[in-house]
């Protein structure tokens, strides 16, 4: 315990060093929020597997390596190296961040339709701080469970760390009924900074006012050198009748660490389609909290995790049905090879007043090798009787009968296995509605699969 305390003290000291240099120091609410956040983190320290929500995520690697705080970096990345991640051929608004800081030279915001604002955290703090104030304060309330009245800050320690250190990120605002043609692509590149690994804290906010439509695509990649750690927080807020497609590719460098936390608030009649594909980083965690705050919300949340070598991938989701007639469909599938470890922890909670809620949750895991491991904890917490909820979970190897069927028709074993894995994962990728993004994930998966046995 004392060791951990000591480790978090290092971050308090570091915070005191940089606090004056962070953007927005003139805003009293932000200064207060930041000091609260660092205190919160100092109290809790890095979450350990003893914290139930972090049961399957082990951060000891980054705790031990004591990463430095990433700063704005200008070297090491050129446009050419990033091109393979670009979406084409499509009009698209692209922002590139290197170690968490916006890089205008690599970005291509393009022509924005009226009512769409794309800017950085720093700029927004200057010219529209009230937009951030509302949403940032809201996130800090999450430690308190409004339903049970209990407060448990520990699971949110990494979000607190982000709140304390966040210096840059994307801020996207869509006015009423605005619907841009192309997706908004946010690319986060992690590069090496000196000998010690660095940690970045990008902080993003997407606000769609009533009736607006937006497609947000986040790509996290690393340049391969150094054990970078990304601790990203993305907040999404959908107004009445808004529709948001939110895709994410976690493809950090093999030695990296990725902690991603998304917080989604959905108003009346809105639709949210989330999809996450993870194939990168040594240790990764994708945390998604969705709140169906008003009536008639439709939410779909899908995920694919492709793990091999020594990778540790954890997926944690929490969906709160807080109002009547919400609908959720969640499908997470994992393919785990070699000595990797994949896990899924998902909770759906239906509040007492959220009548006529319909929630389904499915988690399936394929174990492809002798040393692969999977863990699954699908959880339902239902607090009223007028609901329909179901979940299912499976862990196992490929179905022998299906394999036999293919082999009997002359398909070689390796090809047959590949075909079945393809079908297993493809089903989820096919749900991605935007064609270029679906193609992006398809290609990614194909190349992953071609490296599998």
């Amino acid at each position, binding site marked *: 315990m004392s060791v951990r305390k000591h480790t978090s003290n290092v971050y308090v000291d570091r915070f005191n060093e940089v606090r004056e240099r962070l953007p927005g120091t003139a805003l009293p609410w932000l200064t207060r929020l930041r000091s609260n956040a660092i205190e919160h983190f100092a109290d809790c320290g890095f979450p350990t597997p003893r914290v*139930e929500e972090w049961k399957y995520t082990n951060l000891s690697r980054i705790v031990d390596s004591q990463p430095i705080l990433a700063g704005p970096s200008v070297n090491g990345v050129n446009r050419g190296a990033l091109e393979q991640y670009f979406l084409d051929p499509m009009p698209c608004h692209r922002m590139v961040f290197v170690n968490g800081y916006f890089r205008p030279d690599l970005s291509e915001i393009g022509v924005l339709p009226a009512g769409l604002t794309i800017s950085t955290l720093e700029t927004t703090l200057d010219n529209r701080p009230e937009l951030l104030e509302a949403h940032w304060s809201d996130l800090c309330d999450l430690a308190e469970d409004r339903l049970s009245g209990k407060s448990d800050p520990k699971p949110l320690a990494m979000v607190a760390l982000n709140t304390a250190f966040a210096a840059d990120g994307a801020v996207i605002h869509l006015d009423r009924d605005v619907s841009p043609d192309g997706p908004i692509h946010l690319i986060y590149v992690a590069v090496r900074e000196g000998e010690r690994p660095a940690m970045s804290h990008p902080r993003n906010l997407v606000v769609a006012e009533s009736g607006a439509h937006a497609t947000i695509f986040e790509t996290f990649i690393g340049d391969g050198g150094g054990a970078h750690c990304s601790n990203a927080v993305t907040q999404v807020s959908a107004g009445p009748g808004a529709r948001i497609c939110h895709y994410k590719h976690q493809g950090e460098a093999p030695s990296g660490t990725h902690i991603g936390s998304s917080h989604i608030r959905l108003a009346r009649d809105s639709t949210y389609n989330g999809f996450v594909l993870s194939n990168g980083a040594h240790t990764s965690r994708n945390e998604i909290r969705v709140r169906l705050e008003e009536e008639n919300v439709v939410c779909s949340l899908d995920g694919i995790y492709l793990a091999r070598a020594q990778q540790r991938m954890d997926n944690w989701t929490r969906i709160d049905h807080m109002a009547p007639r919400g609908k959720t469909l969640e499908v997470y599938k994992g393919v785990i090879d070699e000595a990797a470890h994949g896990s899924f922890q998902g909770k759906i909670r239906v509040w*007492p007043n959220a*009548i006529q809620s319909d929630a389904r949750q499915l988690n399936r*895991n394929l*174990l*492809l*090798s*002798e*040393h*692969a*491991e*999977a*863990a*699954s*904890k*699908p*959880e*339902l*917490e*239902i*607090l*009223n*009787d*007028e*609901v*329909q*909820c*179901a*979940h*299912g*979970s*499976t*862990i*196992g*190897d490929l179905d022998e009968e299906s394999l036999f069927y293919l082999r009997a028709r002359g398909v070689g074993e390796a090809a047959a296995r590949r075909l079945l894995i393809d079908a297993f994962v493809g089903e989820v990728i096919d749900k991605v509605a935007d064609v270029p993004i679906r193609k992006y994930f398809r290609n990614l998966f194909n190349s992953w699969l071609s490296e599998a046995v």
Partner: protein
Amino acid sequence: MSASVETVKSVEAATGGEYKYGFYTDIESELAPKGLNKDIVRFISAKKEEPKWLLDWRLKAFQLWLNSAAEEPGWANVRYAPIDYQDAYYYAAPKKGETPKSLDEVDPVLLETYEKLGIPLKEQELLAGVAVDAVFDSVSVATTFKGKLGELGIVFCPISEAVKTHPELVQKYLGSVVPAADNFYATLNSAVFSDGSFVYIPKGVRCPMELSTYFRINAAETGQFERTLIIADVGAHVSYLEGCTAPMRSEHQLHAAVVELVALDDAEIKYSTVQNWYPGDKEGRGGIYNFVTKRGACRGRNSKISWTQVETGSAITWKYPSVILQGDHSTGEFYSVAITNNYQQADTGTKMIHIGRNTSSTIISKGISAGHGQQTYRGLVRVLGKADNARNYTRCDSLLIGEKCGGHTVPYIEAKNRTAKIEHEATTSKISDDQLFYCRQRGLSDEDAVSLIVNGFCKEVLQKLPMEFAVEAQKLLGISLEGAVG
């Protein structure tokens, strides 16, 4: 099924639908002083005339408990005011002279109590063919059929007696499945356990009758801490039943039992429970805190352990009957029906730990929540690296009746072996309007319709119960849901 509706009705008529076993038997009892300390542990041990090794074992457990006192488990989805462990009696026994040699010597007041509970000990000995061990507060008061079982080499007696007659067996197996340091309540039990049943089925013997223990908490402000140990030797087979009741009282009483099962090669143990401790009144006052550790070890090849439980009582239930599948080809089963009505809370489920090769486990859990009841299924299925071809199937369904209740499902599934095949399914819903409409259209009243649907919902589990219990369980379902509809 209409027969069951009738039984429910007749029982309701006789009891007004209230808790039927809430009476109190006025019998002189012997109590240890209130509170818990080393001397109480010594007192209990001395009362039972225990050998030194057992006293040492208890004292060690007590020390562990003191050390872990800060770690009272708080992770379960149940809420209650903190328990004052010093404000209870840890030993209560009906006063009596010599240990009864046969039923004729048992205090007639006690026999009458069991008669009221629907367990006429005498009658059972003559007719029913079920051997009963009756535990009244902290001690076993009567065991039937001893002679007949003895002929086959079967040992069925209070554990306090087994310590004297079969010390080698008790010493070998006590705490081998649930170690003293296992968890807060098991540690407490290890220090202060009073009595319970001991069963040993020798090699190759198939126990010719159902063995049964009936637990009764009678005295006020007492905790009951019984300990059951069942050993099925190579090729043995036994079916064991457990039932429990307590008087109605406005304060809470603690029941922290430990049950250990050991199945050797080719052995089979079937353990059934109908738990009907006093659940508290309609406002949630009183009732038993049922914090129980039950675990079986399938030590041998082809061994099998099966838990069946019908949980209708207790204010709070905290119970996870588990199976450790150590032997190759061993099988674990868990069938459960749990009902929470009024302000009852239950956090219950199972653990299946697959260690040996070709092991399989099945979990069927049916939860019914009504009124302000809160119910959680919490289960763990773990397949270790060496457990090739492990197979698990889990199904847990929750039925919600009323808008204030809750039904939760928290399964943990962990596999470290690619040949594992694990499937988990769960659903939560209310009784469908279509089903209710169908029944009512055919002239059934609302209550009868619900009773019918609930019985159908639980059928899969109820079928696993031995005959005598199945009937009782069906009645209980109806009574427990009394007042939940309409």
